[in-house]
């Protein structure tokens, strides 16, 4: 048994086995999802006409505002391409997204993984980034035929290259095991970083696409006696509450 644990953790010989047999977990997640599906069905079926009309109106307003913002995006995108060509840097890749739904979470409180209802049959690959409406959530670590397991950015074994949106300073955001905190490692005391700064993904490492919001800095503690500043950030994604998520199709990462 000890050999099995060590083999599974330090090598990938058992990956095909765990992928095939992992599919047997699907009915369990389907059953645990029943209360959520029933409450969604109840919400949809038992709303009054007035509530539906009001919701419709507010959604139309939101779409109008977002379309207005998109109009400026087109010209910004073109300007971005021109500037990059001027600098002789690579073009930005267009990203496709796939909408998916969260169907389960890891039962162990120390392990921050979630189960999403899209798998290899939908084109999901290992290392694919996952976002929700407000920010980056994590990356796919295990792909089964019809669903996949995603490691969240707040898991204590996950680290994410970020940059400060304001000035481009780069750092690494480490998960520490709580859903509401990321720690920035090895930030020197003289770095220009303040509370309220937005951290976005820097794209270094090739795993996550550039520019997606990750977290907001909540505290910066500069102690002259310590070698590095202690910077804590709060993830922007609703890691605890998001149900509808997006899987981003960028370039497949080159795995060792």
């Amino acid at each position, binding site marked *: *048994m*000890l050999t*099995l*644990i060590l083999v*599974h*953790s330090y090598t990938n010989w*058992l990956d095909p*086995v*765990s992928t095939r*047999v*992992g599919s*047997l*977990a699907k009915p*369990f*997640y389907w*059953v*645990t999802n029943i209360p959520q599906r029933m409450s969604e069905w109840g919400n949809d079926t038992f709303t009054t006409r007035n509530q539906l009309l009001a919701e419709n109106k507010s959604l139309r307003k939101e779409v109008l505002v977002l379309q207005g913002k998109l109009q400026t995006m087109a010209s910004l995108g073109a300007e971005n391409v021109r500037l990059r060509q001027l600098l002789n840097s690579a073009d930005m890749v267009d990203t496709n997204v796939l909408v998916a739904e969260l169907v*389960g*979470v*890891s*039962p*162990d*409180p*120390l*392990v921050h*993984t979630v*189960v999403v209802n899209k798998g290899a049959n939908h084109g999901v690959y290992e290392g694919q980034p996952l976002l929700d409406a407000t920010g980056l959530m994590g990356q796919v670590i*295990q792909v089964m035929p019809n669903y996949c*397991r995603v490691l969240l950015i707040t*898991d*204590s*074994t996950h680290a994410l290259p970020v940059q400060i949106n304001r000035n481009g300073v780069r750092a690494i955001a480490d998960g520490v*095991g709580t*859903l509401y905190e990321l720690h920035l490692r090895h930030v020197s005391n003289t770095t220009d970083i303040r509370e309220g700064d937005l951290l976005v993904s820097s794209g270094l490492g090739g795993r996550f696409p550039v520019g997606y919001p990750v977290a907001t800095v909540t505290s910066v503690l500069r102690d002259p006696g310590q070698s590095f500043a202690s910077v804590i950030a709060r993830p922007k994604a609703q890691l*605890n509450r998001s149900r509808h998520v997006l899987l981003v199709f960028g370039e497949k990462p080159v795995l060792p």
Partner: protein
Amino acid sequence: MSQIPRARNLWFVGLTFVLALIASIYPLEPENRWLRPQFVCLLVIYWTFYLPERFGMGWACLVGLVQDFVSGFWLGQTAMGFLLVSYLCLLSYSRFRNYVWWQQAGWVFVLVGFQQLTVNWVNHLNGRSAEGLLFLLPAFTSALLWPPLCAWLSRCCRRYRIANH
């Protein structure tokens, strides 16, 4: 020497494990996840104590592997814990049946504590650690759940005539 009565309706054992697996992966708020009792471990303990001839270490190991696959843990993490628990149960089942309910709950706390210890040890290998003795909290809630669970299962066993109660 009397013959060991033949255990029947063993599908009920399978059903209890399926229900326990569903309960063990049911999504809970992050603050409440430490309070979840170890349902599958409790059932392994129960069936090993009351059906030691039929439910031994092999079945405990298999159930552990199934829980590992379903929950997405490292293969063998839960299975190793269940092997240890099952071994201790097989050593002590005749004593255990004579205990009073609160003595049984105390022994269950120790057994589930051992299982949590092995799981915590494997998590440490992976770089994840629980603060202090927090990993024993599920053992505590499992021990609290043991007396009602035991009473309910004994009633079901009598009804389906599963074991020699």
